[in-house]
């Protein structure tokens, strides 16, 4: 055993299990809730009991080719299957190629290992993990990395730092005001390095640069912000107004697609599921406060802090077990962890994480 | 200072002219630039020029304790120095990628190939051995530093003589000065040669070009550096990726390198031998680098121009059809082994006697069999010298 493996139980178990791997893997069929199967499979390896009702195929090794149609024929055209950069099998014209593929001598080849989806004749391959690709209209959570001439650079987990222009944010004192030189001078007072913002993707430039905007009413409209610097407070208020908020970064592909990105969860926390995989958790702001803007310096009670901590750990364990993150799954995990009477700190233990994940998946299945 | 950016125009025009079968300096694809070796005042100091690339190598020695793991072997250490003098975009005092790579090439070619008999550098086992230090300084970077550094290093090592030592009965070691006793030459079994190929891709076609200039280096897709000796041993291979290549293309390059390596090795041996015999025969002490035998870029370029014009004249005289024979088919050159390893050599004999060169690659004169009136006899002699030298080598 190499030194680095010590003290990390999961890695030890898994690497040993992969070495003693029988060369057979389980694939849950569609009857099994798709949400479950990965975690089930993973957990089944450890727990040794298949808890799902579905049919398990053993050793059904699939020839993962693009567009062979064999799998597609069996499971429906949209059934994803896996491709591991196999040699090409289908001949397509260049305009039909999708993301994650490229043409070579008239055939389409996958360039990433991931899931193949086919919509009509467009074949795309989506990798499991990827940096945020960006889509216009997505709500994302980002962190300011640099303040420049009339724009901020925002880290949104994409391949280039996104750009938030001064003209694209709601300035203090009215939404339609043109930004002036003073605004430009005081940019750092509005947002400075390290601040978190919740913004939407306005445009994707030619070179892949994401242009962000924070003008939308989506973020909770606050009228008559008074004084300078209120914008900063305004934007961050949604996220950071209280001192007990926290950011969890997960893979962007784990975030379930959803129109609504900000959720006030019943446990008393507001969660922003940024499409870029940054999830932000804050205590719920009372309605009147949110709209009228009062700087709240009240101390956050321990219970709320615990709730936020628990939510954070639940998010972590879901991500660890590759379960899609949505308000439902987070709340289920949260409730399960309370049901099973785990302390917040226990949720970081690997076996507890596994138990909770399994239980959450089961209860979601019901 | 930052490097001047490369414009699209420069890039495309170079590639397209190579695909038209033409290099900017009108060399053939498999032609190496002109090699000149100059030797300094002391033993083991050599400056090599490869076209406009210039490298200075200097060997020094000292008595040190041997490595405990190898108590009866001398040491050899190689250091490459690359300063902004060589090219303005290199940063001073900082190791950069080029140095790392050169160091690796030299280490493998010279140190790890064990071409140098390190055991002969032992004075007293476990007590004292000679340590040779090879310092390679790049003076001008005009492309293909690997070959140039290797050339200079090998020549310097072959040229080097270390002082004689006597070991007294009580273990005292006396190092004699060069005046007191004849210095002892280093013994180099094989002459490692380094050859660089540059690859240019356009679409599916890949064109291989030897000895790239700096501009070609900036444009090329990838390259292959082969270190080998005339005995057919590969001492190092470096194909650092950046492009996809078929195995066959690479291997054929390596095979081709062999014939070239022979001629380069001979050049080096000849040049070193010439200088050493000159030192022996002439009673006057060698004066080292001199203005008259250090060739400036201007001289070199003028010489190239004159050569080209003369070559043209020669052709008209001989009624050789230009163009067809002269221009190599790029693709052909790529695929099959060209037989031109001889005639692609740099000096056409008609001009070499007039050139302002120092001891350069004249050994080709004979083979080229074109009338070179004055220099024929001389060429003969040299050829014989080479032969006798080689047999001596073989016997050793």
């Amino acid at each position, binding site marked *: 055993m190499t030194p680095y493996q010590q003290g990390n139980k999961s890695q030890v178990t898994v690497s040993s299990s*992969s070495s003693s791997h029988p060369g057979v893997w389980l694939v849950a069929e569609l009857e099994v809730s798709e949400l479950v199967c990965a975690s089930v*499979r993973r957990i089944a390896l450890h727990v040794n009991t298949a808890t799902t009702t579905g049919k398990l195929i053993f050793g059904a090794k699939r020839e993962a080719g693009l567009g062979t149609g064999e799998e597609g024929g069996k499971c429906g055209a949209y059934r994803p299957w896996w491709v591991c950069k196999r040699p090409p099998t289908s001949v397509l014209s260049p305009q039909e190629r999708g993301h994650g593929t490229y043409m070579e001598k008239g055939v389409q080849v996958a360039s990433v290992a991931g899931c193949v989806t086919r919509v009509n004749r467009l074949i795309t391959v989506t990798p499991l993990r990827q940096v945020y690709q960006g889509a216009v209209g997505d709500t994302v959570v980002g962190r300011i990395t640099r303040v420049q001439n009339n724009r901020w650079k925002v880290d949104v987990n994409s391949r280039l730092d996104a750009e938030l222009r001064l003209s694209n944010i709601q300035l203090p004192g009215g939404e339609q005001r043109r930004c002036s030189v003073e605004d430009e001078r005081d940019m750092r007072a509005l947002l400075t390095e390290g601040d978190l913002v919740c913004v939407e993707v306005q445009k994707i430039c030619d070179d892949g640069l994401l242009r962000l905007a924070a003008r939308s009413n989506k973020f909770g409209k606050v009228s008559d912000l008074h004084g300078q610097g209120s914008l900063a407070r305004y934007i961050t208020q949604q996220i950071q107004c209280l001192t007990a908020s926290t950011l969890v970064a997960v893979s962007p592909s784990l975030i379930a697609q959803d129109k609504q990105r900000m959720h006030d969860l019943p446990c008393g926390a507001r969660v922003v599921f940024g499409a870029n995989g940054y999830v932000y958790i804050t205590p719920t702001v009372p309605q009147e406060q949110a709209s009228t803007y009062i700087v709240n310096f009240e101390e956050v009670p321990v219970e709320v802090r615990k709730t936020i901590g628990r939510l954070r750990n639940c998010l972590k364990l879901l991500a660890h077990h590759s379960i899609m993150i949505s308000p439902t799954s987070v709340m289920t995990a949260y409730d399960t962890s309370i049901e099973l009477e785990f302390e917040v700190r226990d949720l970081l233990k690997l076996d507890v994480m596994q138990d909770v994940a399994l239980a959450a998946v089961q209860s979601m299945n019901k | 200072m930052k490097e001047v950016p490369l414009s699209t125009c420069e890039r495309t025009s170079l590639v397209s002219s190579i695909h038209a079968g033409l290099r900017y300096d009108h060399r053939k694809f498999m032609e190496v630039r002109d090699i000149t070796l100059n030797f300094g005042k002391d033993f083991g100091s050599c400056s090599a020029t490869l076209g406009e690339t210039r490298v200075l190598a200097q060997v020094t020695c000292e008595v040190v304790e041997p490595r405990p793991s190898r108590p009866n072997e001398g040491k050899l250490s190689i250091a490459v120095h690359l300063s902004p003098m060589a090219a303005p975009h290199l940063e001073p005092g900082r190791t950069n990628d080029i140095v790392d790579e050169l*160091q690796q090439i030299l280490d493998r070619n010279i140190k790890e190939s064990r071409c140098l008999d390190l055991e002969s550098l032992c004075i007293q086992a476990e007590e004292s051995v000679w340590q040779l230090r090879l310092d390679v300084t790049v003076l001008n970077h005009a492309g293909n530093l690997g070959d140039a550094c290797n050339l200079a290093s090998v020549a310097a090592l072959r040229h080097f003589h270390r002082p004689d030592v006597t070991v007294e009965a009580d273990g005292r070691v006396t190092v004699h000065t060069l005046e007191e006793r004849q210095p002892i030459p280093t013994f180099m079994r094989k002459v490692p040669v380094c050859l660089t190929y540059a690859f240019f891709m356009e679409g599916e076609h890949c064109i291989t070009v030897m000895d790239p200039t700096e501009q070609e280096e900036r444009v090329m897709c990838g390259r292959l550096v082969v270190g080998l000796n005339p005995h057919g041993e590969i001492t190092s291979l470096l194909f650092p990726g950046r492009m996809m290549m078929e195995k066959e293309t690479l291997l054929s390059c390596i095979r081709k390198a062999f014939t070239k390596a022979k001629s380069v090795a001979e050049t080096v041996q000849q040049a070193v031998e010439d200088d050493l015999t000159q030192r022996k025969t002439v009673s006057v002490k060698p004066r080292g680098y001199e203005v008259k035998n250090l060739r400036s870029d201007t001289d070199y370029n003028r010489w190239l121009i004159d050569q080209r014009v003369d070559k043209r004249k020669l052709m008209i005289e001989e009624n050789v059809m230009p163009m067809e024979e002269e221009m190599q088919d790029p693709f052909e050159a790529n695929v099959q082994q060209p037989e031109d390893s001889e005639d692609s050599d740099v000096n056409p004999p008609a001009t070499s006697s007039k050139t302002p060169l120092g001891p350069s690659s004249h050994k080709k004169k004979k083979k080229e069999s074109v009338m070179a009136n004055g220099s024929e006899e001389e060429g003969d002699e040299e050829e014989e010298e080479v032969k006798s030298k080689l047999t001596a080598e073989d016997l050793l």
Partner: protein
Amino acid sequence: MDVISPEGLRQDGRTPTCLRDISCRLGLYDRPNGSAYIEIGNTKVLAAVYGPREVRSLSKQNLDECVIQCEMSRIAACQGERVRRPRDQRTRALSLQIAGVFHAAIRKTKYPGSQIDIYVQVLQADGGVTSACINASALALIHAGVELMDYVVSCTASINKTTPILDVTQQESVTGCEVTVSMLPNKGSVVSLDCAHTLHLDQLDEVVDLAMEGCQQIYKVMSQEVETYLQDKNAVMSHQ
């Protein structure tokens, strides 16, 4: 001592054309965009990939394609005796080579203006370090979802007298050469070729051939692991 015994076996009981045990693993860590670990016999290498991300130094930015940087280092005790510097000239040259390999393999034009950093840590070294590093980096890049032309696999081979041997250990490489070949297995093209110590020209062909054969075997192991990994994470995508 002979590398190959009279029975035709090597010291560790392998036949000349047999690979050592290989096991690899994708996704060890969450923090980097991609990470992987590979064991080839006693050579153990860990790789992490960050990016594509914003370029760190603007002077290096290339607006047509991405910048690929590689940093390889060895832990101090990876070869039994302590190495003085984890990064020296040799590892720098190796890093350069690894970066060169991925220059050929990554679809650079997909990430203009970005930077991909590959960090490789050699935990144990026992021959074939370069190839292990390349394999680990390739897996890490696949894990990170970086677009590649193909898998990249690398393998070493050597020759003992007249018998070509595959996947040499440290001990075996002391006596002979060590040829490292990296290739794109599905395209069959070579992306890096490297030879340390002397090798005769006539033998080069068979050594390279053997190494390329070894590459194909390693490729099978690696693609198996990638498939396992993907099956593992099935739920993620299918839920969308």
